[in-house]
C-alpha cells in the first residue's frame, strides 16, 4: 500500500514540475493563454449575451495575452469553481488564476501560490435602507442582518459585532439569492457581503435607490491574480502586466492616447512604451509589450471604470482602489 502511495506522490510531483517550468515558453508555443476565471461574478468574470467574457479579472488575463502575443483575444477562459481553482492551477490546467481570489498567507505558502499583486481591494460591507437613517455600521446595534450561511462573511459579521460589544440578529440563508430576496422583503434591516457583491446585488432590489452601502469595510479582501510557485519568469510577466496597467494610469497613458504617447519625450513614458531601455526584453517579451497592453485592453483606471466603476452598471466607488496619489492605495513600482 505504501509503495502505491509513494508512486502516486511521485506522479503528482512529476506532473507539477513538468507543468510549472517555463510557463512563458509553454504559453508562447501553445499560442494561447489558459486563464482560470470565475464566470459567475458580475464585474469580474461573466460571459455576456454574445458569450464574450467580460470583467476586471477577465481583462487582467487579456492584458497578459496582449503583452505576450500583441493580441488580447488569445486567451482561453477556463471557468473554475471556488473549490477546484487551486488544483487547476497546480495541475497546469491553467497558466494563472484570475478569479477574485483573496491573497492570504496560507494560500501564498502552503497552497503553493504566488500572488502577483492586488487588482481589486475588496472587503465586507453593509447595505441598509435609507429610511433606517443609519450612516455608519457602528449604529447597527440590535439590527437584524441577512447573510449567506457558511461563509467567511458570516464569521466576519459575528467578529465585528462581538469586538464592539454590539448585538446583532443574524438571519442566515443558504444562497446569496435568498438572502437578498429576504432583505428586499423586509425580513432584515441590513444585508452584508463583500462590497463588490453589494453593488451587484443592490441592482436586484425592487428599488435600488432606497438603499445605501455603508462606508465601513469590516474585513480585508485583497483580490489578485496568482501563479504557481517555482517559475519566477512567469511570475514576473504576470506581475509586471498588472504593474504596467497601474503605471499607465499614473502616467495618464490611455488606450486613446497611446499612439501619441509613443512619441513622447517624457523619460518615464519613453521607458514605458519601450523607446528607451529594453525592459520588455528583460521580461522575455517584446519591446512594445506595455504598448500592446494599453492599446488592446487599457490602463487600470479604464478597465476598472468599464467593468465595475462609473462606466458600468455596478457603479462601484473606486475607494481604496484609487491611485496612491489620488487618495487610494493602488501603487505600482516604476518600470526602469
Amino acid at each position, binding site marked *: 500500500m505504501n509503495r502505491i502511495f509513494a508512486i502516486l506522490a511521485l506522479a503528482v510531483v512529476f506532473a507539477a514540475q513538468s507543468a510549472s517550468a517555463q510557463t512563458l515558453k509553454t504559453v508562447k508555443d501553445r499560442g494561447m493563454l489558459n486563464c482560470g476565471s470565475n464566470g*459567475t461574478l458580475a464585474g469580474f468574470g461573466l460571459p455576456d449575451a454574445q458569450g464574450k467574457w467580460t470583467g476586471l479579472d477577465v481583462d487582467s488575463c487579456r492584458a497578459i495575452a496582449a503583452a505576450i502575443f500583441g493580441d488580447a483575444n488569445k486567451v482561453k477562459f477556463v471557468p473554475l469553481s471556488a473549490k477546484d481553482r487551486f488544483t487547476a492551477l497546480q495541475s497546469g490546467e491553467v497558466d494563472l488564476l484570475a478569479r477574485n481570489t483573496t491573497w492570504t498567507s496560507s494560500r501564498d505558502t502552503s497552497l503553493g501560490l504566488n500572488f502577483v499583486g492586488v487588482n481589486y481591494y475588496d472587503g465586507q460591507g453593509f447595505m441598509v435602507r435609507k429610511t433606517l437613517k443609519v450612516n455608519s455600521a457602528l449604529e447597527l446595534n440590535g439590527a437584524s442582518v441577512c447573510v449567506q450561511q457558511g461563509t467567511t462573511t458570516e464569521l466576519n459579521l459575528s467578529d465585528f459585532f462581538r469586538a464592539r460589544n454590539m448585538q446583532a440578529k443574524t438571519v442566515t440563508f443558504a444562497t446569496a439569492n435568498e438572502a437578498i430576496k429576504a432583505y428586499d422583503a423586509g425580513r432584515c434591516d441590513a444585508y452584508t457581503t463583500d462590497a463588490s457583491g453589494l453593488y451587484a446585488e443592490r441592482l436586484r432590489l425592487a428599488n435600488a435607490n432606497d438603499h445605501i452601502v455603508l462606508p465601513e469595510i469590516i474585513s480585508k479582501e485583497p483580490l489578485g491574480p496568482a501563479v504557481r510557485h517555482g517559475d519566477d519568469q512567469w511570475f514576473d510577466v504576470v506581475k509586471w502586466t498588472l504593474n504596467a496597467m497601474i503605471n499607465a494610469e499614473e502616467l495618464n497613458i490611455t488606450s486613446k492616447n497611446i499612439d501619441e504617447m509613443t512619441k513622447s519625450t517624457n523619460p518615464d513614458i519613453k521607458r514605458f512604451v519601450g523607446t528607451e531601455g529594453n525592459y520588455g526584453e528583460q521580461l522575455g517579451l517584446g519591446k512594445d509589450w506595455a504598448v500592446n497592453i494599453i492599446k488592446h485592453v487599457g490602463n487600470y483606471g479604464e478597465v476598472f471604470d468599464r467593468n465595475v466603476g462609473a462606466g458600468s452598471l455596478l457603479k462601484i466607488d473606486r475607494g481604496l482602489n484609487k491611485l496612491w496619489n489620488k487618495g487610494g492605495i493602488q501603487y505600482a513600482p516604476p518600470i526602469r
Partner: protein
Amino acid sequence: MTMSEGDLAVAKIHFVRSATIEAKPPPVSMRGAVGWLRENLLSTKFNIILTLLIALLFAWIVPDLVRFLLIDAVWTGADRDACREIVQNRAIGACWPFAFERWPYFVYGSYPIPERWRVDVFFSMLAIGVVWLLWLGAPRRGLVSVYFFVVLPISSFILLTGWKAIGLQPVDTVLWGGILVTIVVAWVGIVVSLPLGILLALGRRSHMPAVRLFSVIFIEFVRGVPLVTVLFMASVMLPLFVPEHLSPDKLLRALIGIALFASAYMAEVVRAGLQAIPKGQFEGAMAVGLGYSQMMRLIVLPQALKITIPNIVNTYIGLFKDTTLVFIVGIFDFLHTVEVSRIDPKWATPVTSTTGYAVAAMFYLVFCYAMSRYARATEARLAKSERR
C-alpha cells in the same frame, strides 16, 4: 319444486312481450358531465376529499402562475428598466425580453458567432435522426442504427470541434455551452449507455468468472459513488496524474464519466429484464440448436428489452437531468448558462432569476415529457402480442 298443472295453465297465457323494450337512458345523475363527475371525482367520501384538496391546490397555484408568466409578464424591452416595478409603475411578472436577449447564449454558450451555423447543422442532423427513428413508415429504417451509432457521431464530432483540412476552424470545447452541451452530454450518455449496459448485464450473468467478476466490480463500484464524485475525479484529480499535453479535454472527461455512470445503471435495468424471462425460453432456444449469441439476439434480449422499456426511459430521463451536474466542473450546460445570465447586471431585477428558472423548467419539461410519451407509444406498439 315441481310444476303443477295449474302453473302450466298460467304459462299458456301470452303475457310475455314479443319485442324487447327500448332501453331507458341511465338516470340523470349517472350520465353526462354530472355522471362523469360522480363516477370519477366524487364516488366515495375519500375521493371527495382528494378532489377538493387537488382543486384547492390548483386554485392556489394556477392563477398566480398564469398571472406571473402571461398576464403581468413583460414582453418587450431593451434592459432592466423594462422589468422594474418602480419604473413601469405596475405589477411585473416574468421578464421575457431578458430570456429573448439571452436565448442565443442559452443555445450556443460562447460558441463563436460566425461558426454557430455548425451547431445548427448538428441540431438538424440530430432532428432528422430522431424523426427517422420515430416515423415508423420512414424509408430504409434498417439504416437508422448505422446513422445513429456511426454516421452521426463522427460527422458531428468533426463538425463541432472543427477540422482544419476541410476548412472548419477548430472550436475549443471550453467555448461550447448551453443547450448544445446539454444535448451532447445527454445524447452521448444515451447512445453509449444502452449497448454498454447490455454488455455489462450479460457479463454479470455470464458463466465465465473473469467476465462476471469484472462486470460486478464495475457496476457496483460505479453505482456506489455519487455522479458528482465521478465528475470531480475526472476533472480535478486526473490532470494531477498525467502531464498537461496528455490530459484529455475537460468536456470529454465529463462525457466519459457520465457515459460510464449511466452504463452501470443501465446494466442493472437490463439485468432485471433478463431475469424476468422464464427459463423455458433459454432452454427452448438451446433445444432448437441456437448458440449463445443467437439465443440472446433472437430470443432473450428482444423480450427482455421490451419489458424494460419503461425503466430504460426512466434512466434516460434521469440521465438527461443529471447532465446539469457538469456545471460543478465548470462546463456551461443549459442550466448553467441560465444561472450565469441571471447575474448579468444589465437585467438585474427582482424577477430575473425566477424568469430564468421558468425557462429552464419549461425546457426540461418539454424534453422529458417527449421522452416519456415516446416510451409509452413504443410500449403500446410492442405490447400487441400480449393483447389477446
